[in-house]
Structures are given as C-alpha cells and as structure tokens.
C-alpha cells in the first residue's frame, strides 16, 4: 500500500487523498481556514502550508537515490505547498509545523497578515470563543503585530438577506460562503466584490441572500463576518450549553446541536452526520426553537382549572374508566417519540380500544430532495412502524361527528388547528390532551389538559423519512429535573461549576410539564394497569424486542449517529 511520512511518522493510505484532509483525519492538527471537506479547495488562505518532498529518483536506474547511510534521499520542493490542494503520492515526505521551523514561521506569517486588517473586536464579536481565527492565532500566531497603520475599512452590519448579517471588516476572504452557494446549495447568491484588500462577499445587484439554506454560511465562516440576524448579541458561546440532538421540524431529522442559556433554547446549529444531513441545516430547522421557549403551559388543568399532577392523572384515568373502551379514540402523534406512541398503543390496548391513529401534517411542494421535506412532522415513519396509521382530517372529522366517539385522547397534536374538527364538534365528547403550548387550538375543548415535554425536553427516538432511527436528547430541563444530575443534558460551565449561590444561577424558565413516558404510565397506574419502566431506554428495549421493524434500534446502537432501519430491523 502507498505510504506517506508526516513528521517522521509513516502512514498508509489508499486512493486520491488530499494531504490536509488526511492529516486532519490522522490527528495532525494543521491550521487552515478556506478548506472545507464538502467544497473545492481554492488554497487561498495559505494557512496550511507544509514542506513536501519526494524521493529523489535516479534517472538511469529509475530507483530512488540512497545516501551513505542507506536512507532514501528526499528532494523537497523549493516552495512551501498548500496541503489542502496537495494530492498525496507514494513515498511523499511531509514536514508540518511540528517538525519544521520554516513551516512554523510561514504559518505565523500568514496569521500576522490575516490579523493586520482584522478589526480584533473579539470582545463584541459573536464568533469569539469558537472562532477558528482566534483559536489558530493563539496556537500558531505571532505574539503581537508590527502593523502601525490604520486598518482598511469596509461596510459593516450589512443585511445580506433576511437572516444573515455581514461585517465586511472581519472577513478574511476565505470564500467558503461563496463556494457554499455555488457548489453546495447552488443558489449562486453570493460573490466577492471589490479587489485586493477591499474584497468582501456580497450579493449580486438586486439579489437578496434569502435561499432556504442561507444560515449555513454562518457556521462555516471561520470568523465573525457572517452572523445570524436572529441570534447575534444574544449570548456568548461559553454561557450556553450544547446538546447533541435532532431537529423536529421536518421528516429528515437533521442532526443538530441545541444551545441553551437560562433554560431557553437560543440557537440551533448543524451537527455533522454524513448519513443524514452531512454538515448542513435548513434555515427553517434553525428557526424552529421559539415554540420551545414561549407560550408554554404552567400547570395541568381539569375543566380549565389548575390542578396538581396527581389530580390530573386521576382525572384522565376517570375519563377513561367512565366510557366504553371501544368508544375511545386514541390519537397518536407524529410529533411524539416512538416510545410515547408505543405507550399510547399499550394504553389503548389496556382500555380495550382499537389501535391509535395519527394525523399526518404534509405540505405538498415544501420539500426539496435535500433537508426540507413535504412531511412537516419528525416521526411519521416511527408511527407507521408501530402500527399507528395515518388518518385523514376528513375521516377523523367523520368519526368525531358520527357520535361513535365518547372520548378523544389526543397525544401531542392539535386536531382543531389541523382542521379535523372544531371546538364545537367536540362538545359532548370528553377530551384528554397532551399539549406543548398554550396556543394549542384544541385546548379550549380539553377536559383534562396535560402539559407535555417538547422534543428538546424529552428522551426518545424519531425515525426519519429514510428510516434512520435517531435519539432525541433533552437540551433544556423541565420542572423537577436537575440539569446537573441529568446525564443527557449538555452542560455549560455554569452547570458544571456553578452553585445555587452564584448570582448567575437561575431556576427560571423551567416548564411544568412531563414527557409522555411519565404521563401515560401514571394514568395507566390509576387504571390499574402496570407500565413500569425504568425510563425511555427500557421502553425502547421492549420496542426493539417486540416490534420487528425496530429490531436492533437500541439506545446503545443508535448512539449519536442513529441507525438505519429496514422492514426487518437494522441494516448490517
């Protein structure tokens, strides 16, 4: 196999690999700005320079020349090479900053150049704390600057589009954003304008940067030149905790990180998963966080009056006891997890009702064969695999108005807002509702209303449109949950090192709600049905063991990247 020697360490490689990517994959931390694995390498930042040599070949024999000690003579290229564009070949010898003073100096020089016209406004920059320029300047940059002139001025706080703001002075012209719109999203909405040191990215005349994936340029920007109009100046990166979870806005289940401060979700960023969303996240998936923070219920209610959870569970159980099992309609939800839908099926079985159904939420023409889907729910696949099938709004309305239903049990959905029925239609029908928000239009008709934990507060599983089963992790705590004790919630410094006596410690914004896997077993217990699970992990173990379509999709198997399901279980 072909061999390459990097800093006196020999690696084997196959195929047409580029040197920088190979180094990054093998733990050699080469600084770089313009290179991104998903796009072409323009080699314009000149930060990843290395020394590259090849064995010196004897022209007559065609064999490498040997020195007196029997070592191959290596001929180094006269100029430093950009590793991002350098194709590896057999016998190549590479010296990085770890073993070459020349390379170390070159990387320092490039950073000095990058910083002379950079505004160095880190104290007010959103990127500070997770800024590649900042990090690499600390690691590889010069101690100070020899630049004693006025910096170049360029346009600042320019709205490139409805969601992205440009600070031209911070830009280091890596062209990642330009290449994103050209090569990845193919919208071609950005280009570099001006020349030389005045260069900055801009939209062509009359064009707005409004493509549905525009905010990805904020993540790939190696400085704070492109910031989110929505999130800028809201929080510093180190004040927030980060939880690896998945997006709940569509059926793609894009992997993302939820950023939380004071128990409020403040932003959503993509998390790399090459099987699902690669490096990207649609703008709509990033915008989907306000509903987790706002209009949240404060207490369970019975007939509109606040009650304790015990009373609410008992009231729900009483409703179920009062009516005949086959006159109960259980409405599952494609917004709810596999675990919760499974428990709902078990509850339906326990009261002698038929299997639950769910309302699909499909918006034809919304999808784009990339991350956006026509299906606006995250778990329709999961419902189907559990044997919970879709019911159209019309069919649901017909059943509700036919008089055959005495009790409608709605888990985490809103049949009134979906147009399946009106509040008036539900008169004479008892309604038990698990709801996320006080804006739920079915709420006025609910006899028992049970606030439910949202996708960012619960533990569970969603199955995406391609049959990829993935884990949800709680990003924010709910009332009664201690952030620091929950193993799955991402922790920030305040969580790790803070105490309730610190002035920035807060217990505000803890929503008084419960996930389905707490509520449903509690109601079942009132009914005399035992549903004792240690938690959602145990529920999923039971699902994988009893439902063939989920075979193998345990929490351990799903991990952070999820598993691909087939009809017969997990693919090999």
């Amino acid at each position, binding site marked *: 196999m072909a061999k390459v020697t990097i800093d006196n360490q020999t690696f084997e490689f196959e195929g047409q690999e580029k040197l920088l990517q190979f180094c990054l994959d093998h733990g050699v931390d080469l600084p770089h700005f313009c290179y991104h694995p998903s796009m072409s*390498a*323009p*080699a*314009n*930042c*000149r*930060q990843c*320079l290395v020394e590259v040599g090849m064995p010196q070949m004897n022209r007559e024999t065609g064999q490498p020349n040997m020195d007196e000690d029997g070592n191959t003579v290596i001929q180094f290229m*006269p*100029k*430093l090479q*950009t590793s991002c*564009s350098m194709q590896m070949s057999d016998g190549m010898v590479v010296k990085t900053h770890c073993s070459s003073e020349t390379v170390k100096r*070159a990387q320092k*020089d*490039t950073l*000095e*150049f*990058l910083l*002379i*016209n950079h505004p160095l406004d880190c104290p007010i920059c959103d990127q500070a704390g997770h800024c590649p320029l900042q990090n690499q300047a600390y690691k590889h940059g010069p101690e100070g600057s*020899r*630049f004693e*002139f006025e910096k*170049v001025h360029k346009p600042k706080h320019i709205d490139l589009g409805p969601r992205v703001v440009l600070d031209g002075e911070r830009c*280091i*012209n890596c062209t990642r954003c330009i290449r994103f719109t050209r090569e990845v999203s193919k919208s071609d909405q950005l*280009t*570099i304008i*001006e*020349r*030389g*040191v*005045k*260069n900055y990215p801009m939209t062509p005349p009359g064009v707005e940067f409004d493509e549905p994936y525009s905010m990805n340029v904020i993540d790939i920007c190696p400085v704070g030149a492109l910031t989110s109009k929505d999130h800028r100046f809201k929080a510093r990166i180190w004040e927030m905790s980060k939880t690896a979870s998945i997006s709940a806005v569509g059926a793609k289940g894009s992997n993302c990180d939820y950023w939380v401060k004071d128990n409020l979700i403040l932003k959503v960023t993509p998390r790399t998963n090459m099987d699902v969303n690669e490096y990207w996240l649609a703008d709509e998936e990033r915008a989907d966080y306000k509903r987790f923070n706002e209009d949240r219920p404060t207490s369970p209610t019975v007939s509109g009056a606040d009650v304790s959870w015990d009373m609410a569970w008992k009231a729900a159980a009483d409703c179920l006891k009062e009516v005949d099992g086959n006159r109960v309609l259980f409405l599952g939800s494609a917004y709810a997890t596999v675990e919760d839908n499974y428990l709902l099926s078990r509850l339906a079985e326990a009261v002698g009702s038929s299997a639950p159904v769910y309302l699909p939420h499909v918006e034809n023409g919304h999808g784009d064969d990339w991350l956006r889907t026509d299906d606006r729910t995250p778990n329709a696949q999961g419902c189907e695999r559990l044997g919970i099938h879709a019911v159209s709004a019309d069919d649901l309305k017909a059943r509700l108005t036919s008089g055959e239903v005495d009790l409608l049990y709605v888990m985490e959905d809103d049949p009134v807002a979906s147009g399946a029925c009106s509040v008036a239609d539900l008169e004479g029908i008892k309604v038990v509702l698990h709801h996320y928000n006080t804006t739920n239009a079915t709420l006025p008709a609910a006899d028992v209303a049970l606030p439910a934990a949202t996708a960012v507060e619960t533990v569970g599983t969603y199955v995406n449109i391609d049959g990829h089963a993935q884990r949800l992790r709680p990003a924010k705590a709910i009332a009664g949950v201690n952030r620091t004790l929950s193993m799955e919630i991402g922790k920030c410094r305040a969580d790790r090192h803070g105490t309730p006596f610190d002035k920035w410690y807060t217990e505000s914004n803890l929503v008084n709600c419960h996930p389905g896997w707490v509520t449903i077993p509690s109601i079942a217990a009132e009914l005399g049905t035992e549903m004792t699970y240690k938690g959602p992990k145990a529920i999923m173990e039971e699902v994988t063991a009893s439902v063939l379509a989920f075979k193998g999709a345990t929490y351990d198997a799903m991990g952070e990247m999820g598993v691909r399901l087939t009809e017969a279980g997990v693919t090999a």
Partner: protein
Amino acid sequence: MSKAGDWRNYQRVLLPPVKDLHKLEVYEANEGYAALRDVVTTDKWDPTSVTNEVKKSGLKGRGGAGFPTGLKWSFMPPVDPDIPRFLCCNGDESEPGTFKDRQLMEYNPHLVFEGMLIAAYAMSIKTTFLYIRGEFADWITLMEKELEKAYEKGFVGKNIMGSDFSCDIVIHKGAGAYICGEESSLMNSLEGKRAYPRIKPPFPAQKGVWGYPTTINNVETLACAPLIIRKGGEWFSGIGSEKHPGPVLYGISGHVNRPGVYEFPTGMLITDLIEEVAGGMRGGKQLKALIPGGSSTPILRADMIEGVTMDADSLREAGSMMGTSGMLIMDEDTDIVSWLRRITHFYHHESCGQCTPCREGTGWLENIVTRLDEGEGNLRDLDLLIDLCSQMEGRTVCALADAAAWPVRYTIDRFRSEFEGKCKKPSPVASAELATA
C-alpha cells in the same frame, strides 16, 4: 559585448517601416498572410513541423517569463475530436514600464492574427481568443475592423484560403485589471468569472478555458510565428543573442531624450540602447538606475550595467531579469523612494485579493514605503520591509506577490543609503537619554 551584431543596420520585421501596414491590403502586399498560406495550403507543413520550426527558432515567450514557445506548444495533449482546445493570445499588457504589445496591435494587427492562426494550426485548435485590456479601446476597435476584413477575405473562419483548416478568432475586451494578464486569471476572466488565478497543477494545457486544453501566448510571441515560418527557424535563431534569439520590441521610457518602442535584436547592450537608440539621457544628466523589463524585474544601479546585454543570461548575471523588455530609465534626480512608493501603490491596487500574503502584504508595503517617503519612517522599517517580502515571496497561488515584493527587496538592497537618508533622525534628546540610560 553586444550580442546584437550589426544592429545599426537592422531591418525591422515586427514593425517594418511601411505606411498603413495595419490595413489588410497593405499587409498583404508586404508578404502578409504568405506564411499562413504556405502552412495551410501546401504539403510542406503539418502541425508537428510547424511546432518543430518554432522550437528550432529558439523563440522564448515575450510576456515576461521567457518560456520556450515551441516547447509550450508541444505540451498540448494529442488531438481528440470530441474535446475542444483553445488558444489565448494575451494582450492584457499592463505592467508599469511595458507598452510594446499595443504598438503591434496598432501598427501591425494582421501579423498578430496571422501568428495566432499559425499557432492554432500547429496545435490543431479551432477557436482562438485575443484578450485585450479594456483601456486599449481604440486598438480594440481597429483590430475588430481589421479582423472583419480578414474574415471577408477568407483568411480567418471556415476553410481558410480554401484549405480544410478552419479557425475562428474572438476578440475579448478585458475590464482593465493587471491580474488578468496572469494566464490562469485571464482564462477565468474569459469565462466570465472573477479573475482569480487558478492553482497549478492542472496546467492550462491539461485544463484551461472551460476545463479544456489551452495554450496562452503573448501578443509579441505570436507575432514572431509568421516570421519564423516565412524566413525559417534558422534565420530567427541567428538574430541577436544565441540563447535568447529573435527580434524584440524594447519599450524605453523615462529620462531619455527619445523614449519609445524600438525593434532590435535581443542581446543589445543596455548602454547602446540608452545612449544611441533612445538618444541619451535627458538634459545630459547621469543615469542613476534602470528597470530592464517592467516594474517587477529587479532594479539595476548605473554601475551595474557595464557590458550587460538585454538577454536572459546576461541580465541574470547582472542580478535582474529580461521580463517584457520594458525599460524604465531614471536619472540622477530621481527620488528612488518616491519611485518605489508609486510601484508599491500599483501592486497594492492590482492585487486580486485571493491569497492572504499578497492581499494584506501589498497594502502594508505601500503603507511603510509611503511613510518612509514622507520622512516619517524609521530605520527598522527597512528591515520590516525585507521581512515582509520574505513572507510574501513564493507563498501565493500566482506570482503577483513575488512581482510586488521584488521591487521592494531589490530597491532597498541596492539603494539602502537613500532610504536611510529619508528616515527620521533620532532626536538629540532621545539619543542623549539612550546614552545615559
């Protein structure tokens, strides 16, 4: 020793003294398009023999780098009828001190067309582009008019002169950026993209315009091709310097009595060019310095040019380069720091901004040289300038960073005392404090 032989009796061939030569009928009457006719209509020539003749002539590129032209042509991959291939004629002449191609375009445009067509024949190319900088508006109009006439006559286009060789010439106006003269930038500009230079490899012969095999030659280089075909490679190689032969257009500017473009063999003594060709120094002043081939070539002091001839080898020995043979002559009154300030301003203005060292470095160089020129500089600035040059040279995609750094490096190196003279004097108080400290 002059290598130009009997240059005083040299007969001009690139710009012969013929009135109205730019007109097709005049050009034709003066052996115009004879070489092309010979190549496309007779069995004497095939593409390989044309290339070999150019190789034999020893012609080296006149665009600055001096790469052997025949060798460059032979880099084109074998002909594949399904893959288009292109020739670009680089008329984006814009380096300070260089103004020779415009003479050819103004006074002998058909020689350029004929050269392009012969080169296209040698490389089996059906489409050629003539990229001219936009500031040359007048000559673009003139050339477009003349090209139309050549099309009408059947010298360009389908079945040239009744042969089975067809080739188009497309005149493309640049928007006036120095960087477009860099070959890979020129290709991007031609494609309608931002003129950022491309990384090499792949080289243009592998992946050029729109990803297809492409050769790029300078205007003057291609203008030599018809002469080589007409008079033979041997004739050409016999003109001027042995290793760098041929007629060459010397663009002489600056403090001489008769600045202008002069056609002479290569290998002319610099002193001959100044004293006899350009009529000596203006006002009888002393020569102080000169740039032999456009502003990016290293400056030479008056005492460095004794016996130096205008060819690659001699100039390399003297510590400079042939470049485009655009000679900038400066007399004793020239403020070399001010001159360098103007040059650094040019490169600052023209850096495309793609690569970090050039984008940031060119501006910084100008800042420091400006400060020095205004008498506000410090001695340490000189070392900083040299340091910055080292940080720029060889670290970018194209050679613009080198072209920007060399004038600074060599001017400081060769005129250091002038720079030191313009630096701020340490104040007596500060010196006294230093002494007692």
